[in-house]
């Protein structure tokens, strides 16, 4: 996989207080983001022959055949389509799928896109999924979804490793400091550990400020082969390694609450890339909740299992810290439209192209994006590098 496929363009849309500006639909958002990403790459929509799209719009209705619906709307005629919905990690998975398809010659220019107006639609709630199939063994018992699952993991994590709510709060404090530097971030006011602990408890041990935002948003990414990348505007960001892994859909099926599928995804990604965790310069990690980030730094091998709670102390992952994490403010403070994973990739690309502005990190030639979907259900890890 090494240096055969690259990210060559990214695009997203402006938000104001978490709302997409101008009352756009999910399709309009994707059109804006896709146009920007293709222009960024120096390509046109006629070059796109692979489409990778997922989300939860247009259901029931055209969203059932989302790949076809987006092809129709954007005037694409792809010969390769992937609508894998594995939760918020889907876009990291799609980078892997697109890289494989491009490498195999099934398509040359892959467009990944996503749009959500969940905040405008007020469609998000904590009521839990309908009590059908295996969900009939979870929803009737009052588990709010998805936060309840993460809260169960967090309680177990604190118990096993002697960590405290304060340690979880450090994750949010570090990430908020990045949001201060991002004019596009929804929440930009600095916070302290006390602020997190004093925010309302939602599902213990997770307070309001341990939880991601609920916003609108959209984004797009263009990938192509090494050969085509030579003619694109940007330096290629190589897909060095990739891994995905799956576990449970209901929490009773998760055997070890402190061992998410990010472990298995990470092992695959590093072995394909031939690099080690200690080689990485920064990370963009799915931060649905503070516990997600804590478990993921351990799974990626950035520290030992059980030491993730210390990893965020003393501003280590904040601006100026030794290992930057979530440099746009993350799902906790920048935006979270329901499936956040595409923004991990967009921010990593911007940092690697040194377009970070005041939040530009000094070293950004080797990084990782780690997506998590469902309730620690799925994981996809992408290792990125520039020459």
């Amino acid at each position, binding site marked *: 996989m090494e240096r055969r496929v690259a990210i060559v363009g990214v695009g997203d849309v402006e938000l104001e207080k978490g709302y997409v500006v101008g009352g756009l639909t999910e399709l309009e958002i994707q059109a804006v983001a896709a146009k920007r990403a293709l222009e960024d790459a120096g390509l046109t929509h006629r070059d796109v022959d692979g489409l990778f799209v997922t989300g939860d719009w247009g259901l029931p209705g055209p969203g059932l055949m989302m790949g076809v619906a987006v092809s129709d709307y954007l005037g694409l005629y792809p010969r390769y389509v992937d609508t894998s919905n594995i939760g918020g990690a889907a876009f990291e998975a799609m980078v892997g799928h697109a890289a494989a398809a491009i490498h195999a010659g099934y398509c040359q220019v892959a467009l990944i896109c996503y749009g959500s107006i969940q905040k405008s639609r007020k469609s998000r709630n*904590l009521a839990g999924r309908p009590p059908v199939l295996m969900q009939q*063994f979870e929803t009737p018992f009052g588990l709010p979804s998805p936060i309840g699952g993460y809260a169960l993991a967090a309680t177990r994590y604190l118990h096993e490793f002697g960590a405290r709510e304060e340690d979880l709060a450090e994750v949010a404090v570090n990430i908020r400091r990045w949001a201060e530097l991002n004019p596009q971030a929804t929440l930009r006011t600095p916070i302290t550990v006390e602020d997190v602990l004093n925010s309302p408890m939602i*599902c213990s041990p997770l307070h309001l400020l341990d939880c991601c935002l609920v916003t609108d948003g959209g984004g797009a990414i263009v990938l192509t082969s090494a050969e085509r990348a030579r003619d694109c505007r940007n330096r290629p960001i190589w897909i060095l390694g990739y891994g995905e892994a799956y576990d449970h859909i209901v929490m009773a099926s998760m055997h070890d609450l402190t061992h998410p599928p990010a472990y298995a995804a990470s092992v695959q990604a590093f072995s394909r890339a031939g690099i080690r965790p200690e080689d990485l310069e920064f990370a963009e990690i799915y931060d649905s909740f503070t516990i997600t980030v804590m478990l993921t730094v351990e799974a990626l091998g950035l520290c030992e299992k059980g030491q993730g709670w210390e990893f965020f102390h003393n501003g280590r992952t904040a601006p100026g810290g030794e290992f930057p994490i979530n440099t746009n403010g993350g799902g906790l403070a920048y935006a979270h439209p329901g499936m956040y994973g595409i923004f991990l990739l967009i921010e990593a690309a911007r940092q690697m192209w040194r377009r970070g502005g005041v939040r530009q990190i000094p070293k950004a030639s080797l990084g990782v994006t780690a997506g998590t979907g469902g309730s620690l259900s799925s994981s996809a890890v992408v290792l990125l590098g520039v020459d």
Partner: protein
Amino acid sequence: MANGRRVPVVDHDSQNFWDHLRQGRLSIPRCSACGLYIYYPRSICPRCFSNVLTWVELSGKGTVYSYTVCYRSSDEYWATKLPYVVALIEVENNVRMLSYIDVEPSRMYIGMPVIIRFTPAEGTVFPDFVPISDVFNVE
């Protein structure tokens, strides 16, 4: 039935489970080939892929593996119960169940011994749990 607890949409996989609860029994399938106790109930053994399963009864005693105290809910029923406890419970034979525990939240700890409480509501019976010390005079 406003503000009622959401009821399971019972199906072919789960019919026995909910029927037995109405008779005051907690039962789940067990794999006849490899012996695995299977929860949630399903038609195939996820360990050895045998589809020869037998329903067996469990005592309903367990210990808390993890829990959360919920302070918010947009579910009409649970919003009247705040704060309430949801837990993962290790029942015997390596079975792990997710359930509601009817307990004062400040009493909760990992490892707490609990026992099933059959809760009739909405025309079915829910396998909820309570601290075992609330039922027997031991902890």
